[in-house]
């Protein structure tokens, strides 16, 4: 099915099942510990293949240089060891999709904890002990690890965010002239930190060979991409590779790509002639895989006294391995606010740290943390309410292409509704005025903004003899609620109750879906199921001798004219289709919006920041399931608190690594940090987005949150900290005297 024109009325609009606050259909499996996650697929209950052995990855102890030699003799003789594969016996594997780091092979070390060996043994403990017995000699080389030092030499990135093509800058009007003439300006530099995905389930895979055929049971967000990628890396035909990933314990973008766990499980299994199971040890995750790169950003805003932006500059510098991408921190700035004179670009500094790659709302998250803080600064200089400043500068069209409107854009409603619900009028615009005992209390807000991407997605639906339905697609549920919304979509389309639909996900033998990433998963994968269901409805109607164009599917029955039949009367039928998109997303900018509001308290003695309450008012098309959508948004808000207050991979610029590479050193918010979150969804179905009229929320919940927290801190303390995370040391000595 090709989606080329705005959706008209369709069975989804009934909203009997779609749009209803339904708990996760896979919830009982998770709460009882019986959902089979990748590393648990062994033993009598979940076993996918017998005779599994354990693999353990050894990471390089240097950040740059070469492996001179490896002595594996002691390790090979250790108890239980079945075999060892070292990087010196393996030619460098071709790069996988989306990755620039060396996954495995060759003597060259390009970043700390790059995988240099895998040890297979009968038990996990034996494999781990033996891996630590491998003696490695390195030839160390000097590396480039300090972004602040590298930034002056950073080069302007091309339009794709790399250094291959022409340097790309958005230049509209005359920024320099307009900024020079603007009566009110902000010009400041900001930084955001390197961040780790820190998902609960680490990278994990089980690999087994059967002749030429390889099966990998893994934890991966993008099955079709990763199947092709793994085949390419291992020099195999894609049809000989099968991936299976039915449950994923979080990914946040880290699991978009194939990483060392899957590759080394496959190589290890080949070496020892047995299936191999690997869970990457937590201390390896931060440096072996990827992270959200740190940025140094500059914002220059010029405005008239009534708050209209006349000059807008946003630039960002980030680092990455040779060949890597820039962190696209200014991407959303091209679309967020109207301003006639614009200058927007990104710079990339080549470095030798672990790979920077996609992490939840890549670009938008750090970009809006900065832009929305600068807007707060501008509001104060203007003596204007921060909410009103955003409203004054709202645009209904792409500022670079005024002929291109937004399909739906209700940011103003998000902000006004949010201000009302949050009690924003109680905010004292003068900072450092509100006290509650020893606490300084403040409120802040920010715009949330993330695009909605249309991408093809396929599914198969099977009508069973008993009238129940099975949905099959390689789509993934990374904790987001995909099982539930796909079941809701199919149930709505076929007129079945929810419990008559079974959903099977994550198997690369099933039709290729959009996968989970970039908050595109929900809207596109449900549209794929919609397309398959439309086809199945036609097949059922024809089989029953009814007119497919008028047949009504309700309550397990099909009705056309004065005839009706039970679905089961059609017998077993199967339909497969995919949603594809025309150019509606070129004609219309399709995006999601939020107003984020936050109240914090800052301990006037210690500078500790505690979030009191948070509110997000979100516009994201039709909300498919308010329960799972809310979970997505509050998860994003929580991650935003982490970015604002504590998350930072600390770089050791001498040794070239992230030093705090475990969950004791890399702090993310705990329950006590998140006392109260409220989410409100506006009801604005987007008929130009897809047949579901839906858009994603998984990243919207994060975008802008960090700035809302930061602006609340400023409102509480009167101390502006422009370097994230805002840990207490950064404002402590500027707080009121206490001793």
């Amino acid at each position, binding site marked *: 099915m090709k989606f080329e024109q705005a959706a008209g009325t369709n069975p989804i609009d009934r909203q009997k099942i779609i749009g209803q606050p339904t708990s996760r259909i896979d919830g009982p499996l998770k709460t009882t510990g019986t959902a089979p996650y990748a590393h648990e697929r062994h033993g009598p209950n979940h076993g996918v293949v017998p005779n599994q052995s354990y693999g353990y990855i050894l990471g390089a102890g240097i950040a740059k240089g070469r492996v001179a030699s490896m002595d594996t003799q002691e390790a090979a003789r250790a108890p239980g060891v079945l075999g060892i594969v070292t990087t010196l016996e393996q030619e460098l594997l071709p790069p996988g999709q989306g990755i620039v780091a060396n996954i495995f092979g060759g003597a060259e070390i390009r970043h700390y904890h790059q995988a240099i060996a895998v040890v297979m043994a009968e038990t996990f403990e034996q494999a781990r*002990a033996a891996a*630590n017995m491998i003696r490695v000699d390195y030839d160390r080389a000097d590396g480039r690890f300090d972004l602040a030092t590298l930034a002056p030499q950073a080069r302007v990135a091309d339009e794709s965010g790399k250094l291959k093509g022409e340097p790309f800058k958005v230049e509209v009007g005359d920024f320099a002239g307009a900024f020079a003439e603007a009566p009110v300006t902000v010009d400041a530099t900001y930084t955001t930190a390197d961040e780790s995905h820190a998902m609960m389930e680490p990278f994990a895979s089980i690999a087994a060979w059967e002749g030429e055929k390889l099966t990998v049971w893994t934890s991966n967000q993008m099955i079709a991409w990763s199947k092709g990628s793994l085949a390419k890396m291992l020099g195999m035909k894609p049809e000989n590779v099968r991936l299976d990933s039915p449950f994923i314990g979080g990914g946040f973008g880290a699991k978009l790509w194939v990483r060392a766990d899957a590759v080394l499980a496959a190589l290890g299994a080949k070496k020892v002639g047995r299936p191999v199971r690997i869970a990457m040890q937590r201390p390896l995750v931060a440096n072996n895989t990827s992270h959200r790169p740190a940025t140094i950003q500059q914002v220059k805003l010029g405005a008239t006294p009534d708050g209209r932006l006349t000059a807008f500059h946003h630039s960002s510098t980030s680092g990455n391995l040779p060949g890597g991408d820039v962190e696209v921190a200014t991407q959303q700035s091209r679309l967020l606010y109207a301003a006639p004179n614009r200058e927007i670009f990104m710079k990339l500094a080549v470095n030798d740290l672990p790979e920077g790659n996609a992490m939840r709302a890549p670009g938008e998250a750090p970009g809006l943390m900065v832009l929305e803080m600068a807007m707060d600064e501008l509001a104060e200089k203007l003596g204007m309410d921060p909410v009103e400043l955003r409203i004054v500068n709202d645009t209904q069209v792409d500022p670079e292409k005024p002929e291109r409107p937004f399909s739906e854009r209700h940011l103003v409603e998000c902000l006004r509704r949010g201000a009302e619900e949050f009690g924003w009028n109680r905010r004292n615009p003068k900072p450092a005025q509100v006290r509650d005992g020893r606490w300084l209390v403040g409120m802040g807000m920010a715009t949330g903004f993330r695009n909605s991407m249309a991408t093809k997605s396929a599914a198969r639906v099977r009508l069973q003899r008993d009238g129940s339905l099975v949905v099959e697609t390689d789509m993934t549920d990374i904790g987001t609620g995909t099982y539930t919304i796909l079941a809701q979509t199919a149930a709505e389309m076929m007129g079945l109750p929810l419990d008559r639909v079974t959903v099977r996900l994550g198997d690369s033998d099933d039709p290729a879906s959009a996968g989970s990433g970039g908050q595109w998963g929900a809207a596109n994968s449900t549209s794929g199921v919609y397309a398959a269901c439309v086809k199945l409805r036609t097949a059922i109607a024809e089989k029953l001798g009814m007119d497919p164009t008028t047949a009504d599917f309700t309550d397990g029955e099909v009705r056309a004219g004065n005839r009706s039949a039970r679905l089961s009367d059609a017998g077993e039928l199967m339909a497969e289709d995919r949603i594809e998109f025309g150019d509606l997303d070129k004609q219309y900018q399709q995006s999601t919006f939020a107003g984020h509001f936050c109240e914090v308290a800052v301990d006037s003695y210690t500078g500790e920041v505690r979030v009191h309450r948070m509110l997000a008012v979100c516009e994201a098309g039709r909300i498919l399931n308010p329960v799972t959508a809310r979970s997505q948004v509050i998860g994003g808000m929580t991650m935003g608190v982490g970015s604002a207050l504590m998350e930072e991979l600390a770089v*050791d610029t001498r*040794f070239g690594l992230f*030093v705090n590479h475990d969950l004791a050193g890399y702090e993310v918010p705990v329950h006590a*940090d998140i006392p109260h979150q409220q989410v409100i969804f506006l009801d604005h179905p987007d008929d130009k987005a897809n047949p579901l009229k839906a858009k994603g929320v998984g990243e919207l919940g994060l975008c802008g949150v960090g700035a809302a927290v930061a602006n609340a801190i400023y409102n509480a303390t009167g101390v502006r900290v422009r370097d994230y995370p805002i840990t207490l040391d950064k404002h*402590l000595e500027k*707080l009121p005297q206490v001793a």
Partner: protein
Amino acid sequence: MRPFTYQRVATAAEAAAAVAGNPGAKFLAGGTNLLDLMKLEIERPAHLVDVQDIEGLGTIEQAEDGGLRIGALVTNTTLAANERVRRDYGVLTRAIVAGASGQLRNKATTAGNLLQRTRCPYFYDPNLPCNKRNPGSGCAALEGYSRQLAVIGSSDKCIATYPGDMAIAMRVLDATVETVQPDGTTRAIPFAEFHRLPGDEPERDNVLAHGELITAVTLPRPLGGKHFYQKVRDRASYAYALVSVAAVIQPDGTGRVAFGGVAHKPWRVEAAEAALPQGAAAVTAQVFADARPTEHNRFKLPLATRALAGVLAEAKG
């Protein structure tokens, strides 16, 4: 984790002798720190002597002098919840519940908690120099990422901190650590002398001899006054202290104070306590007179003053 042998013993004397006779042996109680470090091969004991079966180490008893005797195996949870502790030694309960998580406190023991090792990130990565983990290899933290680390009492060999909370309260209470030595004799170690400064031997965290087993911690008679444990950290729970303040303040403004998160041991300067009625800055000026912070952790000095000021303000209120 390296292969090791494992033994359970029934008496303290047996435990001490078993470890003393084997240079690679260590005691095991709750295991909340030791087992983690073994998995990372930062600790590589060849033999573990499990002391959890030893009778008589799991109780809290009134001492003859009116104080309290806390058995070495009393869990953090039990100790924090004990009625007498909550009534008479509130600083101790507050310190314990400020640390770790409920699950860890259920398993962690009184003695083991005193022996937990530093959380310096360089100690935790075997690829990097660390004199505490690998004597003579150097200190990567000194010029490295040292935000969490010591501001006072450190040496050119080590700037690690003692990471615990409970011990800071015990220091302010003038507790005593009771041990049994390999020869069967006992000794009582004043808390001030129990943890060491790193000096030239950062691998030694405390003054225990190899094979010397902690049997109890005793607290003197209750001090009265108001009890405080203010733990300052980057998130609201489950994080190590940037700075912590354990204090007992009397109605007349006199009292005692010890600091955590600043040194290789709980940091208390008794002579400075006379200045408590003059306010926090007067106290910390003396307590931290010899501080040698790094660029990353210099903030701990004003933080300690401000945290104490908060405590003193609450004591008045």
